[in-house]
């Protein structure tokens, strides 16, 4: 399939660009680490309190990190004037979006996975037993963040005050994702952990709806 071939080629480019310098990944990881540590000063980080507030704090940290990290996504293309070349290189502009959002999903997912042991140690919440289910929820959440964030990065790149515009546009939109991920994560942090399929369903619905929207309307964002 041409779409798949184009997407993997572009995805390769995105990953090579990032892993050459690793600056986006490192700054994002450090940012989330900072937020996770600072949160400990806002409440008493005992095990019970951490189970209650931990999921929400974690996901807020991921949300803020994403809205900062995703700014460079299309800004980089705009600053280097490479968007025109990209559009000429592929027949379907959706390939560009797909490649970028796949790369962003990967970066976000990696960041979140790295944060889990840090959170376990700092807040005394054992998570090893639920790691597969937690990874599943983190992946769905990261995908939703990446889909909406990548699309809105293309939107805010064309507006003034783009550093503020991306969070402003993204955060209200992510309300369902925040609620669903936090609830699903909270259920896994619980003393009797369980994977909540109702919240997973809402997360999946969020991902599908916005991926479809990007597929249908994304090309209009990349027009000159």
């Amino acid at each position, binding site marked *: 399939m041409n779409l798949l071939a184009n997407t993997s080629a572009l995805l390769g480019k995105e990953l090579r660009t990032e892993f050459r310098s690793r600056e986006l990944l490192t700054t994002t990881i450090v940012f989330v680490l900072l937020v996770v540590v600072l949160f400990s000063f806002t409440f008493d980080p005992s095990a019970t309190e951490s189970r209650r507030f931990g999921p929400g704090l974690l996901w807020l940290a991921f949300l803020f990190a994403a809205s900062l990290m995703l700014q460079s996504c299309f800004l980089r293309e705009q600053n280097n004037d490479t968007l025109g070349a990209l559009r000429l290189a592929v027949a379907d502009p959706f390939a560009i979006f797909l490649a970028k959002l796949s790369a962003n999903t990967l970066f976000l997912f990696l960041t979140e996975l790295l944060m889990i042991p840090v959170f376990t140690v700092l807040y005394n919440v054992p998570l090893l037993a639920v790691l597969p289910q937690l990874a599943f929820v983190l992946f769905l959440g990261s995908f939703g963040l990446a889909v909406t964030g990548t699309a809105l990065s293309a*939107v805010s790149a064309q507006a003034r005050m783009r550093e503020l*515009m991306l969070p*402003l546009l993204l955060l209200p939109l992510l309300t*369902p994702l925040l*609620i669903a991920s936090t609830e699903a994560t909270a259920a896994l942090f619980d003393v009797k952990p369980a994977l909540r399929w*109702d919240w997973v369903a*809402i997360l999946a*619905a969020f991902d599908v709806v916005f991926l479809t929207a990007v597929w249908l309307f994304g090309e*209009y*964002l990349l027009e000159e």
Partner: protein
Amino acid sequence: MTRIAVAALTVCALIGISTYAAFYVAPTEQTMGLVQRIFYLHAPCGMTALFAFFVSFIGCIGYLLKRESKWDWLAVASAETGIAFCTVVLLTGPIWAHPAWGVWWAWDARLTSTLVLWLLYISYLVLRNMVEDPNRRAQICAFYGIFAFLDVPLVYGSIWWWRTQHPQPVVFTSGGLDPTMRKVFYLSWFALMCLMALLICQRYQLEKTREEVEVLKREVENA
């Protein structure tokens, strides 16, 4: 008399009648008493706001498919009107909540969803101010407008489910509506929908006039 003036007078009359009905025709609710009458303004405003945002959604899709400015004008006119209706919901909610339950704000499903909706569409308006070129503005705002409306069912669904999991005693509706209450409710809703249509028309005209100014400015520059 112009058509607009007739329409405006009709809407005012409808609003007057529905307000009278809300105060005098609808029976007093048993548990909450008099303060429950705010329901006849609060709830229909919420539904009308949703309808206005739906019209905005249609405008956004229309613009992306047809590339005619009138769709963009419709999108922004209905978005602003929707925000006005949301604002009324958010203001009447606390005025109802405080005498009824002693709190100014309760994270009740409908009120919380309306707050998120309000924030979403305020962001839409901020975005509109951040792009100079009218065509580019119309294009990217159409995209964001579509995203925003697609989020609406997800927002309502997730917040409703979240509130179902963590219930609280504050409920902004009457349980089962008495037939007279139902009639007053639908009358209020009808009046508000007519008001919505009028406001959208008025706001649409503003955008159309703005375009006329731009055209004239270009003509003056060329002359």
